[in-house]
């Protein structure tokens, strides 16, 4: 079983550039109508932290909620 994570998006800092969505290996992030990113598929986060690393606006945090390593 892989790790599981919970993604937090700091909306005032998010500019909707979609870099996080493109680097997410599980494709769980998407652009919302108001130009902010949202977690479309929260169940599938594997806490890989790619979105945290790639966000140029430091707007994402990931909490590991299940660690099976």
């Amino acid at each position: 079983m892989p790790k599981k994570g919970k993604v937090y998006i700091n909306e005032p800092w998010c500019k909707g550039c979609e870099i996080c969505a493109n680097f997410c290996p599980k494709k769980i992030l998407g652009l919302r109508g108001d130009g902010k990113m949202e977690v479309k598929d929260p169940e599938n986060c594997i806490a890989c932290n790619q979105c945290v690393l790639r966000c140029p606006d430091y707007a994402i945090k990931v909490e590991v909620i299940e660690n099976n390593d």
Partner: protein
Amino acid sequence: MELEKYFRVEKLPHIWCPGCGHGSVMMSIAKGVDKLGWDPKKVVVVSGIGCSSRAAGYLNFNTLHTVHGRPIAFATGVKLANPELHVIVITGDGDGAAIGGNHLIHACRRNIGINVVLFNNQIYGMTSGQYSPMTPEGSMATTSPFGNIEPPFDLCELTKSAGANFVARGTVYHLPKLDSYMEKAFSKKGFSYLEAISQCPTYYGRRNKLKTPLEMLEWQKENSIDIKKAKDLDPEELKGKIITGIFTERDEEEYTVRYDKLIASVQGGKK
């Protein structure tokens, strides 16, 4: 790493456009300081003018936002007055390669202990997209509507020849590598030059068929060649490519150390 320790979080979100790579390079600087365990009170960030230079406003160190092309001149003064400080210069391709080019080569020649981080987005972003000395040949810009006919400056080769102790180039696409170059650059005594290829989706990408920030990052990935691999390729094959890696690592004596020795010798060994 705690964001609050190195950033003035009340000033965030930063002013840069959606998808701009500068935020990633600024984070890499903070990570470098964190890895070396420098006391933020002993770090001075000096920047010039341009998009990149806005970084000084967000970093929670001693910061100086100076005049166009002159951050290295100000930083030289800071370092000479207080050699124990860690002096980082944040500059861009316009600020550092065009108007500030001469300061850059002479700081290399002196090998003064300043860590220059040049955010290379290959365009004058703040003034809406004029070509810079580091814009790739053939690129569209507001001042080159039929394509840029000038070859770009290779500042890594220039700073290496001018005498810098450490020279490297990384990209925002290869972020973990950029972080490792940052750490090496910061830990070097003497002058270091680190060029970070960043992306400007607003004024470079849109005019050059790279419509999204992701396409710009993919462009960095596809066009980067490691310096070890580049050695076996001829100049024609390397045209338009981004050569990444460490260009030089030397341990020549730093300027303020030589200066202190001079003072000691002319005062007859007393200081």
